[in-house]
C-alpha cells in the first residue's frame, strides 16, 4: 500500500483519517458479528435448557432480539450514518402504526 501514498500532506492526512475510520468500522463489524453469533447461541440455550422457566426465557430472548435488531440496523445497515433520515422516519412511523394497531387489537380481543 505504500506505493499509493501521495506526497501531498493534506491529501495524505485525509486518506489516513479515512483509513482509521475504515479500521474502526471493520472492528465494529467483527465485534458485532461475533456478538450476534453468541447472542443466538445464548437464546437457543435459554430455550433448550430447563434451568429457567419458559416465561422468563421468552422475555429474555425478546430482549436479545431487540439487541440483535440494533446490531443489524446500526452496524450492518449503517442506519447511524448521514443520509438515512428517510429510513428512520419510515421505521418510526411503521413502528408507531404497528404498535397502535396491535395494541388496540390485543386490547379488543383479550
Amino acid at each position, binding site marked *: 500500500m505504500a506505493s499509493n501514498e501521495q506526497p501531498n500532506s493534506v491529501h495524505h492526512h485525509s486518506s489516513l483519517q479515512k483509513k482509521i475510520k475504515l479500521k474502526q468500522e471493520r472492528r465494529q463489524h467483527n465485534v458485532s458479528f461475533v456478538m450476534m453469533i453468541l447472542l443466538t447461541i445464548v437464546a437457543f440455550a435459554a430455550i433448550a435448557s430447563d434451568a429457567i422457566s419458559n416465561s422468563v426465557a421468552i422475555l429474555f430472548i425478546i430482549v436479545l432480539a431487540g439487541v440483535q435488531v440494533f446490531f443489524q440496523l446500526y452496524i450492518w445497515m449503517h442506519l447511524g450514518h448521514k443520509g438515512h433520515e428517510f429510513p428512520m422516519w*419510515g421505521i418510526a412511523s*411503521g413502528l408507531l*402504526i404497528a404498535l*397502535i394497531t396491535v395494541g*388496540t387489537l390485543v386490547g*379488543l380481543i383479550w
Partner: protein
Amino acid sequence: MSNAHAANKSVLWDWLTTVDHKKIGILYLVSGGFFFLVGGLEAVLIRIQLMNPEMTFLTGNLYNQVLTMHGTTMIFLAAMPIIFGFMNAVVPLQIGARDVAFPFVNSLGFWLFFFGGVLLNLSWFLGGAPDAGWTAYAPLSTTSTGHGVDFYVLGLQIAGAGTLMGGINFLVTIINMRAPGMTFMRMPLFTWTAFVTSGLILFAFPALTIGFFLLMFDRVFEANFFDANMGGNAIIWEHIFWIFGHPEVYILILPAFGIISEVVATFSRKRLFGYSAMVFATVLIGFLGFMVWAHHMFTVGLGPVANSIFAVATMAIAIPTGVKIFNWVFTMWGGKIRFTTANLFSVGFIPTFVMGGVTGVMLAAAPADYQYHDSYFVVAHFHYVIVGGLILGLFSGLYYWYPRMFGLMLNEALGKWNFWTFFIGFHLTFFPQHFLGLMGMPRRYFTYPEEFGLGSLNFISTIGAVFMTVGTIIFIINVVVTHAKGKKVSGDPWDGRTLEWAIPNPTPHYNFLQTPLVRGLDALWIEKMAGNKKMTPAEPVGDIHMPNNSILPLIMSLGFFIAGFGFIYYSSAGAPALIAIIVGLGIGLACMFLRSWIDDHGHHLHKEDLLKEDKGVDA
C-alpha cells in the same frame, strides 16, 4: 447497446418485457379497464336480479358468487390497477425523473397483479367463483365448499404481492428521484397523494397478506385460526381484514383527490388554493386511516368504550376531508374555469363525494350504525365514495392525461355524453339505495318479497345502472374513435402547470433530454410566466442511462400462478397439486436466482443519437 437493438424485436415481445414506466402504466390501465368491464357486467347482473321482487334471474349461490366477484374485482383488479396505471404514467414525469427507482420490480408488480387477477377469474370456469363476500368473513369463508374461496385467497395473495412491490417502488421513487429543486413542498398534489397512498400500501397490505395466509392455512392445511371450536377466533379475521381494509379505502380515494386537485387547478388557471393545507390534510387522512378500522365492526360487540373511540376517530377524518373540499371550491373561486370533460368529472366529483362523506359521518355514529349496519344504506354510502368519488376521479384523470399517455385527445363531445349519462345514471342507481336501506332492505340478499314495498325504488336503481352502462359504452366508443382517427396533439394541450406537460408528444422513452430545474410549485407554469418556452435544464445534454427490458418478471409471475393452482387444489387433488406447487415455486426461485446472478447494468443512450432524435421531434 442502442435503440436499434430493441427495435429488432417484435412489438408484442417489447410489451411483454418492458420496464418502461409509461408502458407499464398503459398495461395497468388496459388490464384494469378490462377487469372494470368484467366487474361492471357483474354489477348489471346483480341489478337485473334485484329489478323486481322475487326475480329468479340469478339466485342463491350463483348470486353470492356474482356479488362476491363484483366487489373483489372492482376493488383489487379494477380500481387499484387503474390507480397504479396513473401513478406509473404520471408520477415520474411530474417529479422530473427518467423512470421509477426499480423498473424491474415495477414490471414484476404488474405481472403479479395480472396473473393474480387471471387466477381469481379462472374460478368461474373451474367449479365456481368465491361466494363468501369480498370481505370473506370467517367462518363463512373457512367452511365454504368447493374451491371458490381458495381461488380468492391465492389469486389475491399473488396480486397483493404485486401491489406491495408497486407501493415500495413509488415510495423510493418519490423520495430519491425528484429533479433538482423539486423539494417535498413543491411536489404536485397528485405526486403527494401517490406518495401517501404508497405509504398506506406499505403498512396496510402486510396485514392482508398475513390474513390471507391464515385463511389459506385454515382451508388448505386444516389449521384452526378462525375455528372457535378448536380454540380459534373468527373475529380476528374481521379485525385483520379491516386493519387492511380501512386504509385500503384511503389508498383508493387519495389518488382521486390528487387527480381532482390537478384538474381543478389547471382548468381554473389558478394555483391550487391552500397547497400546504392540502398536503397536510392528505398526510393526516393517511395517518387517521389506520385508527378507524373497527367502525366496520360496531355491531360485533366491542363494547361502548371501544365503539365511542372508533366513532370519534372516524368523525375526525371528516375534518381534513372538509379542508380539501373547501380548497377545491376556493381554487375555482375567481378562476377562469373551462368545462372540459376532465373538469366536468372533477366538478361532478365534489358534491357527490360530499354526499358520500355525509353518510359516512352518519354511519360513524355507533348507536345509529346499529340501524344502518348491513343494510342498503351502507351500500349507497360506499358506492357514493368509491364510484362517485374514485371512479369519477379516474375518468377525470383519463380525459386529462390521455394526451400525455397516448399522444391523442379523447373526443370532447363524446366525453360530455359519457359524463352526463354516467353521472345521472350513478345518482339514479345509488341515491334510492339510501332509502331502500332505511326501509330495511339488507345487503347481499338476492331477492325481496313484493309486500315489502321495495320494488319501485329498486326498479329506479336498475334504470340508473343501465344509464351507467351506456356511459361506459360511450367511453369505449370514444377510445375506439380516438385511436381510429384522433388527431395528434402537442405536448401541452391543456396549458398545463406541472412538469409532465413540459415534454414533447409523443413522450420520448427517456422522458427528459435534460433533467429540468424546478424553481417552485407548478414548475412549468413558473417558466411560462417568466416568458420561457422551455424548462430551464439542470444539466448539459449527456449520455442517458436506461434499464434493459426483461422477460423474467413475466416468467416469475407465471411460476407463482402455477404454484397458486397447486395450493388451490392441494386439499382435493394431492400429488398432482404438490407437483404444481414445486414446479411453480421452482420457476419463481429460478427466476430470482437468474436476476441476482446475471449482472444487468442497463444501457446508455448516446448524446449524439439523442440530439439527432430531439431535432427530429422539433421539426
